[in-house]
């Protein structure tokens, strides 16, 4: 009896400690959202106020009317959508590595793993020159292309797809289904758990991508949200409210996507054999 009380007390103690830690971790975001609704005067007052005294929506209006955040938002969505094309290509590659025996498979898979170790700083300048040579600088495709496929994702797909029973694929082929139909109608539906993770990760990385939009987009019409936000950083040290409103526009959609899908993400990492 006493040990049970002891363990309940322990759970309570840990719960409180974690609750405090969670609040501290999330505090910058609470602060961000609160400030987004404050008039400018209030966001630079000292001492600071936590809850907005005169809440206002004016900064969100400013972003989409006076500034070009509507266009940045659209560009960001396009970059994310291009990322999903890459996701399909990586699923195809993962499938081939998992379920086919072909000449060159070993060293190709080695190349896939090797790219995981290469830092972006090494590839930054050459990639810029390559894109420049392909006349893709200053295009949305050029922004999305360098990060379209990643070794890590191909690896995760392969790990998962090796568990698909080969008999099912053979059965589909006997029924006369072509290779691409087999992939589309059998392999992809059976890979839902890993697809869910990858969709979330692709969405997050496309939405947040900063370095390539910064390097590739010189025309303001092609800026993504993150580049637009970085510009605000330079011009407006004086108006935290507007900055925080812009940051909220960027952060809140990601939070929603992640909170809805978070259990798939943990599950996906568990499935990929990281234990």
């Amino acid at each position, binding site marked *: 009896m006493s040990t049970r009380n002891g363990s309940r007390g322990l759970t309570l103690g840990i*719960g409180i400690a*974690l609750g405090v830690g*969670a*609040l501290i*971790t999330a505090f*910058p*975001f609470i*602060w*961000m959202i609160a*400030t987004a609704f404050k008039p400018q005067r209030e966001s630079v*007052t*000292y*001492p600071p106020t936590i809850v907005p005294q005169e809440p206002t929506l004016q900064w969100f209006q400013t972003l989409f009317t006076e500034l070009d955040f509507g266009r940045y938002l659209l560009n960001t969505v396009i970059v994310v959508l291009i990322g999903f094309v890459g996701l399909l290509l990586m699923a195809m590659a993962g499938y*081939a590595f998992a379920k*086919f*025996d*072909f000449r060159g498979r070993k060293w190709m898979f080695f*190349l*896939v793993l*090797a*790219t995981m*170790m*290469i*830092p972006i*700083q*090494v*590839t*930054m300048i*050459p*990639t810029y*020159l390559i894109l420049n040579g392909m006349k893709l600088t200053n295009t949305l495709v050029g922004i999305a*292309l360098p*990060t*379209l496929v990643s*070794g890590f994702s*191909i690896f995760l797909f392969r790990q998962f797809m090796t568990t698909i029973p080969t008999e099912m694929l053979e059965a589909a*082929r006997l029924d006369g289904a072509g*290779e691409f139909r087999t992939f589309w109608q059998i392999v992809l539906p059976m890979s839902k758990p890993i697809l869910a993770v990858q969709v979330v990760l692709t969405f*997050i990385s496309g*939405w*947040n991508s900063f*370095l390539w939009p910064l*390097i590739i987009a010189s025309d303001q019409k092609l800026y993504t949200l*993150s*580049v637009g*936000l*970085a510009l*605000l950083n330079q011009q407006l040290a004086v108006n*935290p409210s507007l900055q925080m409103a*812009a*940051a909220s526009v960027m*952060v809140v959609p*990601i*939070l929603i996507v*992640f*909170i809805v899908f978070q259990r798939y993400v943990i*599950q996906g990492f*568990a499935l990929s054999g*990281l*234990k």
Partner: protein
Amino acid sequence: MRNKLTPYLFVSPAMLLLVTFGIFPILVAAVISTTNMNISAFANWGNVKFIGIDNYTKLFADPDFWQSIGNTGLFALFGVPAIVVLSLGVALLLNHSQNGFFRALRAFYFIPAITAIVAISLVWGYLYNTQFGLLNYLLSLGGLPPVQWLSDPTLAKFSVALVAVWRGTGLNIIIFLAALQGVPKEYLEAASLDGAGEWKKTFSIVIPLMRFAIFFVSVTTTISWLQFFDEPFVLTDGGPLGATTSASIFLYKEGFRLNQFGYASAGSIVLFAIIAIITLIQLRLRRADDEY
């Protein structure tokens, strides 16, 4: 009748992109690093000249380069243990109970990892602000004088690293939680029957079983500190006086601000070599550990 070409059709689009933007650039970087290439190359490729190892000798004599390498080492030295210990600790605590409250708390710890660095930098820049920032206000409540979070050279290192640690724990907590799902319940129940307490179970059963996850996180965290870029780039731009200039920031500035493509490529090859060597050493240590 199966076509031999099928696997190649599936593999080639992704492989083509991976080779173009993952493998090929290294060769290009290696070649560029032996030239004097800069912005004038875009006007006329004839301006590019082979200069052998001049970039490398210049690099090793450049005090700014050494400062950036020193900073990077310092960041990694403190940052890696901080992130690994913190995320392991939080993951173990989060895993203590499976009730709704504990599950709901998880999301809070993940948020920093999934938000855009630019948004993060604005928020932290505001918190760190010397005139109306919240952190200095909190200090003043404790009767302490205001602090120059981002403009004092020593403190700026700490402030920038703090944001990186705050942001770096989330993904690793996810990895550790996933690994914790793989710890067999029977082991823990057997240990409880033998009278082992929570503390003992954690240190004698759970942590040893998570060796691979801890190793994996240590390696990836080390690599990410060696490539440390985002936080100093957006918070301090490498300043004050280069105090937060990491190797990556140095390369970015040489390459894209000063357009010294050849010089920056030489630096990137050196950084790549350092990362590869450190990773190989870690892999070797792991192998030795397994034999034991």
